[in-house]
């Protein structure tokens, strides 16, 4: 405690005087009171330079942030590609945001510096160095951290718990709002600085020093201190704005003069960098998972803007809470929730009463939330009845998204994305999910919009997804002529687009580059064909597509992959004309796949049972093609199928399917089909069981064989009735599948014929007879009696 008081009394900490060469201003990110007091401090102190905590590789972006056309929230997006494996052996990519809201002290420091005509700069280690000097799962390398502006260490630990207990508040955020945000507005800048430093120094005193080492705090402070010392040599008054946790650490280093900067690594420019990006209030919310600062950022932003607009903090919280209360009531009314004017009055009276009881000068977010809890929720507070609170929370978090005014630093891909969104009139100025419909054939705009959205999806931006429409990648719903899309602009969209910056200047170019890269590494025909489908829906043509695909088909040793690929190519062939797609290589690629399959088909005769269905599907598809696109190759298919049936080892289902398919070339194969079935009938019980599988294959390709005359039906009947009960139960699934190929009318016809064989009624065969209710009850009793006697024994 003595240490703390010594530090807080240090001139560097609190003395706002002309002859004080250094003033350390601690902040909490996005805090209106810190911003308000910082502006006042800058007016009083008149620094020559403002040094701000922030990775120094983004100093060039400061004019973009303070540009008159920039609308907050925006963020600096940092990335580092660890190709040199300086972080660890995994060589991963790293990225993070540094968000700025109107209430952010760092933003206000930059804006005020611009107003005063003084220099402002970021003084932290470059982002790549922070990552290199941070231990795994610590600091910015924690998997849940994507935000540079992190207050976690200021808001956690034993001290804050003790404070909450002592002051009877529910959480650190309530404590902070009561004592700093609202209480701090009426203090002088010196008093505020003293209080902030006291809290921050106490937090630092009570923190684990080992944690500061592993999360990179100490090395960052060394770097920052070296920069401060450097600037103090040439400036008379230096103002340093950092997260409160660093203040005492920086002061110690500056006083001791032992702030030797760490040696920086040489990292190529294309592996690291920073871009300005539009950000959203939603992402800036502390509860959103990024631990970025305070909860309810739009609420606090509104408070800050009200303070600036009126030039005084007096009544700011009361006005803004009333405004948010009215907004909540209006939205509740729109949703038919009971929130009438008397409820609003009661809520306001409760809020004021609570503020008085708690000793808060004006109503804050917690009083507002309590007022709504008591007066708007009628009945038990449950998930469904808490909707007024959800509405308040949504309003207080905010849904707006920022805008970068100076586009010169915006990655070209984001600029193209925004240009196209504007051209297609897609709403991207808020974070609400929107929907849009594209008529693929009604107008050129519809198809162009569909292609743009497919491109965004292909790049993995998370900007949009199809709600309804053709699913060509899954080969489903091909006949749909409209698409319905849902889209939502989020900061992550910009992040992904920034990651693709090296892939091209436009979305189309980036997609083309990714497609090329994908195909270069592709070994399987099926996946390459899916990429071709992606290109088709994106309206992107690839140079040498035919050659690239031919090479992949030729190299692919997996026949099932070639079979699947052939199906996709056929789909593309049929859809090309309808969609006005220029690629004309699909027909050739089908032929290539067909040729590859023909030569390998005989090898499929002895496949394991679990691949039989896939094999039969390919064989049937090949037969379909010889009926349509590849008539001249029917003979080749017939020869290949004959090779299958003459193979020594045959999987029964594949065997059956091959015979069934051959029936369409040669009707005499029907006799062969009967003979083969007879062979299964005459075999051992094991062989007989294989007959069911044979039937499954046969019926999948030629179920009409059952309806020629009664011979086949009789044999099938023999097969089934000749089995013992246990064997029948064993093959029942196969038989069910075999008869699953029949239409309901065919099943009825078969039942009729079987009934005739057994001199019974068809309905009796199909449905069986109803069991008498009393007989069923008797059976049940008998069963339980037997079971109990068995149990007794």
């Amino acid at each position, binding site marked *: 405690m003595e240490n703390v008081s010594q530090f807080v009394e240090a001139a560097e900490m609190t003395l706002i005087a002309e002859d004080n060469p250094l003033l350390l201003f601690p902040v909490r990110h996005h805090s209106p009171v810190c911003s308000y007091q910082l502006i006042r401090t800058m007016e009083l102190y008149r620094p020559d330079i403002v040094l701000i905590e922030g990775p120094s590789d983004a100093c060039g972006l400061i004019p973009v942030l303070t540009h008159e056309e920039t609308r907050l929230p925006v963020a600096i997006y940092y990335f580092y590609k660890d190709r040199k494996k300086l972080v660890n052996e995994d060589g991963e990519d790293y990225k993070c945001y540094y968000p700025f809201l109107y209430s952010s002290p760092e933003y206000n420091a930059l804006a005020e510096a611009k107003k005063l005509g003084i220099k402002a700069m970021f003084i932290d280690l470059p982002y790549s160095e922070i990552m290199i000097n941070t231990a795994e799962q610590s600091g910015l390398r924690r998997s849940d951290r994507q935000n540079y502006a992190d207050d976690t260490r200021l808001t956690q630990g034993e001290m804050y718990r003790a404070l909450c207990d002592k002051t009877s508040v529910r959480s650190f955020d309530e404590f902070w709002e009561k004592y700093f945000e609202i209480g701090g507005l009426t203090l002088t800048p010196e008093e505020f600085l003293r209080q902030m430093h006291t809290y921050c120094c106490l937090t630092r005193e009570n923190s684990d020093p080992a944690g500061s080492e592993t999360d990179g705090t100490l090395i960052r402070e060394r770097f920052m201190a070296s920069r401060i010392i450097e600037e103090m040599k040439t400036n008379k008054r230096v103002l340093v704005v950092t997260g409160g946790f660093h203040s005492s650490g920086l002061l110690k280093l500056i006083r001791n003069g032992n702030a030797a900067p760490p040696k920086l690594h040489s990292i190529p420019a294309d592996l690291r960098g920073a871009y300005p990006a539009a950000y959203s209030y939603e992402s800036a919310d502390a509860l959103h998972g990024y631990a970025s600062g305070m909860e309810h950022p739009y609420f606090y932003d509104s408070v800050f803007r009200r303070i600036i607009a009126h030039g005084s903090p007096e009544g700011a919280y009361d006005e803004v809470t009333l405004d948010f209360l009215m907004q909540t009531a209006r939205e509740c009314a729109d949703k038919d929730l009971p929130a009438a004017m008397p409820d609003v009055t009661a809520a306001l009276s409760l809020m004021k009463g609570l503020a008085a009881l708690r000793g808060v000068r004006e109503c804050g977010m917690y009083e507002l939330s309590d007022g709504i809890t008591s007066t708007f929720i009628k*009945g038990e507070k449950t998930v469904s009845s808490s909707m007024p609170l959800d509405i308040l929370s949504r309003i207080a978090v905010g849904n707006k998204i920022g805008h970068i005014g100076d586009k010169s630093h915006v990655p070209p891909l984001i600029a193209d994305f925004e240009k196209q969104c504007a051209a297609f009139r897609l709403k991207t100025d808020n974070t609400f999910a929107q929907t849009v419909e594209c008529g693929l054939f009604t107008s050129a705009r519809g198809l162009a919009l569909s292609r743009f959205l497919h491109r965004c999806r292909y790049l993995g931006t998370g900007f949009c997804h199809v709600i309804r429409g053709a699913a060509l990648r899954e080969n489903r719903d091909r006949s749909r002529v409209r698409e319905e899309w849902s889209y939502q602009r989020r900061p992550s969209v910009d992040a992904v687009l920034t990651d693709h910056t090296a892939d091209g200047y436009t979305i189309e170019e980036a997609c083309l580059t990714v497609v090329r890269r994908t195909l270069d590494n592709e070994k399987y025909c099926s996946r390459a064909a899916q990429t071709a489908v992606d290109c088709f829906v994106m309206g992107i043509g690839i140079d040498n597509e035919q050659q690239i695909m031919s090479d992949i088909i030729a190299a692919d040793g997996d026949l099932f992959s070639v079979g699947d690929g052939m199906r996709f190519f056929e789909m593309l062939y049929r859809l090309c004309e309808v969609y006005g797609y220029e690629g004309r290589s699909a027909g050739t690629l089908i032929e290539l796949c067909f040729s590859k399959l023909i030569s390998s088909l005989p090898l499929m005769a002895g496949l394991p049972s679990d691949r039989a269905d896939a094999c039969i599907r390919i064989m049937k598809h090949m037969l379909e093609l010889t009926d349509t696109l590849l008539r001249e190759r029917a003979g080749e298919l017939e020869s290949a199928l004959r090779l299958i049936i003459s193979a020594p080892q045959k999987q029964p289902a594949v065997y059956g399917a091959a015979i069934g398919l051959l029936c369409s070339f040669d009707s005499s194969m029907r006799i062969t089909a009967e003979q083969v079935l007879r062979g299964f009938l005459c075999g051992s019980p094991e062989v007989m069981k294989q007959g069911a599988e044979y039937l499954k294959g046969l019926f999948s390709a030629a179920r009409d064989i059952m309806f020629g005359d009664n011979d086949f039906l009789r044999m099938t009947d023999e097969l089934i009735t000749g089995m013992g009960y246990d064997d029948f139960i064993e093959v029942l699934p196969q038989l069910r599948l075999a008869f699953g190929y029949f239409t309901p009318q065919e099943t009825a016809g078969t039942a009729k014929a079987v009934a005739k064989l057994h001199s019974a009624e068809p309905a009796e065969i199909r449905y069986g007879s109803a069991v008498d209710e009393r007989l069923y009850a008797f059976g049940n009793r008998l069963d339980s009696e037997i079971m109990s006697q068995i149990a007794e024994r």
Partner: protein
Amino acid sequence: MDNFIKPPVEVRYADELAALAASDKGRRPENWKLSPRAVRTFILGGKVDTPSGKAEISKKFYGNDSLVERAIITLAGSRGLMLVGEPGTAKTMLSELLSAACCGVSTNTVQGTAGTTEDMIKYSWNYALLLSKGPCREALVPSPLLIGMEQGIFARFEEITRTPAEIQDSLISVMSDQILNIPELGDDGLVLARQGFNIIGTANTRDKGVNEMSGALKRRFNFETVEPVRDVKQEKEIIIREAEDMAKAGHIDMPVDTDVAELLAVTYHELREGRTADGTVVERPSAIMSTAEAVSVYFQALSHAWYYDDSRFDLGILTEILVGAVCKENREDLAKLRAYFRTASKDKTKEGGLWKTYLSSSKLLK
């Protein structure tokens, strides 16, 4: 006070209320005995200055402090306070504490039942006097509501949703206009509510749908949902404090075993949450697993030890009483309790000691 099973709050905590009143310098609503801040301290605990130094005010309500603050401010306004929640979550206790602290009286109560009539809510007559003297004030039997209006104190309405909806609705005119008309008394029959009058209702969420409150009546109340205590440590403290008080009232001179209290608090907490501390999922019994039930189970086991076992606490007896408390309505609850003992608590036996003995008594779960 020693001869009463449960003295009213204002009697039980008379010293604390007197100390708070003596040191209370805060603003207080008309007719309130204490300022809202002092009421808060009375319920949530703290220290007050007395001529003999700082006096400790005990914490009486555990859980959500901000709920208590909202309740106090609601009562200082024009709306009634409705406390809703699962049985055994101390709704009644909170309403008694609020009444005692604000008005000095916690016994001005209507108990809602299926048989509650409008007479019980408004007024009825002493028929002998009515016949002999006709309708006059003397013959009038005022209800707690009428007493509250005339004296400017709170009227408590317990289990309001057990009362038929049309009877509940008789509160609407009183709460809207703060007037009760007794037509039989003619011009003298208009009773205007004095400053300080308000209504505290309680409703059990298990009774939801029995007699749903009308929208009109709901609008006249601010609702507060009292949740079960979610913190095992707090639940243990409540069990210890309440069991000590009950033991003292019952002249049972036996210390409360804090380890057993913790064991019971853990059992109730885990069964209520459907999850153990180590993350094992357990089936929740349909019975009410409230802290009040846990206190009752502990006190019964304590009484058994005092009267039958020479003050030796038997965990087997505790288990047997637990069965009686959990398996009231549904036989399946017994299976759930057995499953809890068999699987979920297995890891706890590694700790040995009390848990091992406790879990070995599972054979008594039948």
